[in-house]
């Protein structure tokens, strides 16, 4: 796996740059106990998600067993092992949003994009997520796209909204 990675880095300058960036961050954290979660956060920022080879690489660099790295990554919702789309759509199904009909908003999104929660559309445009409360219950039902929050959503409004994100 590691030998394989070396060869791929030679052929792929973009990947090389990403790994260099990760390396720099790990060097900064070197020797600090419990830096695994921070490093994984940074890695996800750099790569957009956490590919298997990054998990293996971080395990070797931090000298943390790879079963532990895998355990941590699969524990936290925040970490994603599949590539994210250009836009992340989070539909809130928390109590307040739910009683105000967010499930019909969610249904509409899944139908129009053809993907379920946790999946990415084949064109790489959208990733759909389900969340349980984003702390904006006064605006229920809420949809968050990337870093913007949209309130009082309806099935019709959400379709128009999605079309703004290309």
């Amino acid at each position: 796996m590691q030998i394989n990675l070396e060869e791929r880095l030679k052929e792929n300058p973009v990947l090389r740059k990403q790994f260099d960036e990760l390396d720099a961050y790990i060097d900064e954290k070197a020797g600090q106990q419990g830096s695994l979660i921070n490093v994984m956060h940074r890695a996800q920022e750099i790569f957009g998600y956490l590919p298997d080879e990054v998990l293996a690489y971080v395990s070797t660099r931090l000298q943390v067993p790879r079963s532990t790295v895998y355990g941590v990554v699969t524990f936290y919702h925040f970490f994603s092992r599949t590539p994210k789309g250009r836009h992340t759509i989070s539909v809130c199904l928390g109590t307040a949003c739910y009683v105000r009909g967010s499930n019909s908003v969610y249904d509409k999104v899944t139908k129009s994009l053809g993907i379920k929660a946790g999946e990415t559309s084949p064109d790489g445009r959208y990733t759909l997520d389900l969340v349980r409360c984003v702390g904006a219950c006064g605006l229920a039902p809420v949809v968050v796209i990337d870093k913007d929050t949209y309130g009082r959503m309806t099935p019709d409004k959400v379709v128009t909204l999605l079309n703004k994100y290309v």
Partner: protein
Amino acid sequence: MEMRTLHVKINGRDYQVPDGSTILEAASAYANIEIPTLCYLEGISEEGACGVCVVDVKGTRNLPRACLTKVSEGMEIWTNTARVREARKINVELLLANHPTDCFTCERTENCDLRDLASELGVREVEFPRTRTEWLPIDNTSLSLVRDPNKCILCRRCVNVCAKVQSVYAIDIAGRGSNSTVSTFLNEGLGNVECVNCGQCLLVCPTGALTERSEIPDVWKVLGDPDKIVVVETAPAVRVAIGEEFGMPDGTQATGKMAAALRSLGFNKVFDTDFSADLTIMEEGFELIGRIKNGGTLPLITSCSPGWIKFAETFFPGVLDYVSSCKSPQQMFGTVTKTYWAEKMGFDPRKIVVVSVMPCTAKKFEKERPEMKTAFHYWQEKMSLKDEEAFNDVDFVLTTREAARMIREAGIDFANLPDEDFDKPLGESSGAGVIFGATGGVMEAALRTAYEVLTRKSLPRLDFEDVRGLEGMKSATIDIDGTPLRVAIANGLGNARILIEEVQKGESPYQFIEIMTCPGGCLGGGGQPLSNNPDIKKRRAEAIYREDAGKPIRKSHENPEIQEIYKDFLGEPNSEKAHHLLHTTYHDRSGE
């Protein structure tokens, strides 16, 4: 240092217990109350994961877990109130709600901790509905172990043993909440990761979630085939443990009954791995002598334990040159049977089936290593065999438990069998071969031979007490007629790691190191009977040393059958032929 004692009440009686004890320890040691638990393993797994050990403590609202809660001055503990009984029952019922109900056909049907506990607590029905709708896939990727995640209760004993005792870290908890499972990296399966196949996880599993990959059906099949010559070899540690499976006292030497039972199962020859243990000593002992005399790579590190070999290949590829090139006794036996014995008897090697009975799960992996087809290569040219006809040196490996299961299945009254002997010539062994089964045994056996060869003098005393005992690490300086030989022994891979890191840094002060994968050596192997006796390894070790002391021949080089195989077949120890047949090579697996 004087330990402070605390005054506590357990179920209304007063006790003085050492400060720092948990409620679980105090109740067991002072009040003779065994608080039930499914996840606790002293010093190894103290997680409070199963929630079965809850107790009532006066003045606390909740029921604390006895395994994690330390006693305090004046504490009043009740281990058997209605609240406690109800809570334990509910916690077990919750574990049972999603547990498969195939107890009839489960391998652990007779010794399942979960089932026993449900019965002890009087659980008669499970109030909670099943929430898991699909069965999780069984991990069949390993040649040694099978993992059924559906039977896993997430007690974490296996995870902790793998990490803390063996320092392998092949598994951890993945996912969260109700989706948690014990998993390898990327859920690739035990056969595709750093798992060394030692089976220590299996020994501590409270349910049937971890079992060996059974080869019983294959062995029954060859036993029923009249065209095959089926021979069996038994490892040293099996004879002092197999009796446990038949209700005999712990530490029974059941060698004669084992030989009789295997003969009754239909094996054509009942041979002994102790013979090839003697052969290993000749090869490894002379390898040591050669390296000392010729300034070779030192320390020499033993190579009989296949879990250790995979561990070295995975984590310490840089030390592989230090490891003895000798095959393990199991593999030497297979090769010798299909070359020397086949030739001597005029048998077609393709018709010989070698079955070994081992205290070990890693042996199932070892026999499948691609380089373990030496007998085939020996015959290939002579018999003009095609590559597709390749056969393994050892065909099947049964654990001690599997052999016992076959004996039970055949209705053999093991405990009352008259003793029988092994067959000759591959059943003859010395006491040195027997002690291979205990930690320090390979070292002692090698020293008995190396001393006499190096000094050309007879050993004044055969027992090297300094290298005996169940401690995880031991070292000693042995006086070889004025020349000091520094030796070290480790059992359990966590201990081995410490010695091997020294070797890797070039700082090892030793000339000879024995490594055994499992705590206690083979007698504590992952293929041994499951036991609740905390002193079980001690009992088995005592039996092994009694067996050695009772042998007329106690040095490998004095075994007449060993002398004969060198005279008639191999030539000298470490001869070219011996190297070709009895030695092997290792691979760097660090990139896998």
